[in-house]
């Protein structure tokens, strides 16, 4: 026996799925309804998540149970952002932005160097070994990295030699984008198939008597 809530829910879910699918055809009232419903639900969800997983534990519980009154500082800064509603007080929100953006800049700077920039650089520096194939590939990689970097030179005019090299860079960039594009196609198709499977499987819940 499937609970009534599940049967009803599945009807709604499949209905909404079809409404959202109608977007492929063109804008229509069914999609408009689905889109607006989705918007309302997702914002309601967002409010709950923000409150129950951030404000409630990090502010209220922290003060009440752990007597951690340090959280008053970000709370005040958060209220400063809200004060933007009052034009004469809106400059207060800058304090919050300054802490948020300034802190994140300092936080991410060494991380960019450590986990993004240096690994990419060191992976490019590979010795020539492993037979003619890998050596040729290694040379192609060097040429591609070089020409792509030249393409992103802004203070050089892209003419003559620089122009030719940056043109080569664009060739590599486009081949790379093509590969990336082709690679994603299959993943997207399988998502669509998954959605169709959901609709088909839901049939057994929507029409309980079809279940064996």
């Amino acid at each position, binding site marked *: 026996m499937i609970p009534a809530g599940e049967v009803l829910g599945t009807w709604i879910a499949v209905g909404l799925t079809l409404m959202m699918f109608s977007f492929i055809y063109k804008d229509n009232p069914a999609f408009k309804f689905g889109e607006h419903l989705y918007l*309302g639900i997702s914002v309601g969800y967002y409010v709950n998540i923000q409150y129950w997983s*951030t404000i409630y534990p990090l502010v209220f519980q922290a003060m009440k149970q752990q007597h951690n009154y340090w959280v008053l500082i970000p709370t005040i800064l958060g209220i400063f952002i*809200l004060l933007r509603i009052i034009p004469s007080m809106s400059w207060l929100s800058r304090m919050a932005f300054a802490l948020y953006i300034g802190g994140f800049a300092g936080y991410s700077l060494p991380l*960019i160097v450590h986990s993004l920039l240096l690994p*990419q650089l060191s992976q490019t520096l590979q010795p020539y070994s492993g037979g003619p194939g890998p050596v040729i590939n290694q040379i192609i990689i060097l040429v591609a990295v070089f020409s792509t970097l030249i393409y992103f030179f802004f203070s050089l005019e892209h003419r003559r030699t620089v122009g030719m090299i940056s043109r080569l860079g664009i060739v590599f960039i*486009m081949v790379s984008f093509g590969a990336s594009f082709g690679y994603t196609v299959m993943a997207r198709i399988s998502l669509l198939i998954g959605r169709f499977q959901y609709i088909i499987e839901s049939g057994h819940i929507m029409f309980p008597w079809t279940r064996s």
Partner: protein
Amino acid sequence: MIFLKRQLPIIIAFVAGIMMWIRYYIPSEVSTNLVDGYLEWVRIIVGFAAILGILSLLQHHMLKIRMKRPGFAFSYVTIAAFIMMTAAGFLPFAFPGFAEKNMETGSLFNWLYEYTFIPMQATMFSVLAFFIASAAFRAFRARSMEATLLLVAAIIMMVGRVPIGDLISNATPAFMIGQNEYHLIDFEEWTGWLLNVPNAAAKRGILLGVYLSQIAISIRIIFGIERTYMGGGD
């Protein structure tokens, strides 16, 4: 006053930036607590900003209704759905027909999440399959050298990732170089090469530039050169 409005935010950004940067190199409990505490503070600040966002959305839709702009009736749907979902999560009792309250399993909130939010989200994601097809068609019509390169690489990739690619490869004549057998057309080999050689290399070139830009923008923020985010005015 001008100090509070102009200089103080820059000083805050500088102190916070330098502290968060330097602490990365110092192995200590204080350093770990500093970053954990900072991230928690940011979450709280952003949590409050959410209220501003919600107000903005509600105001936008209220205005639409009041001005009777085209499609204003749908704004009622958004507002009603928002109120229902919010109430489901906040009201301290179980709704009739549901076993639990708030966000627990078996609550109205959970039911709405499972039967409206999730299916719509999954559908929008799966719709991408149609869009990628029309994007590919768009690429077909483009007549530049760049677009052709992109398309050829994409086609090789696509064929190489489906079983038919193997069939084609195996049907082409094979020849031996040294100990290894090669096919005249070998999509599997080609896709691997495309991904690992030109694709990886070009991405590296792009990303190295991006990371440098990010370092530059971080430095500009810390030293108060970049302050668009603080807005203008006085």
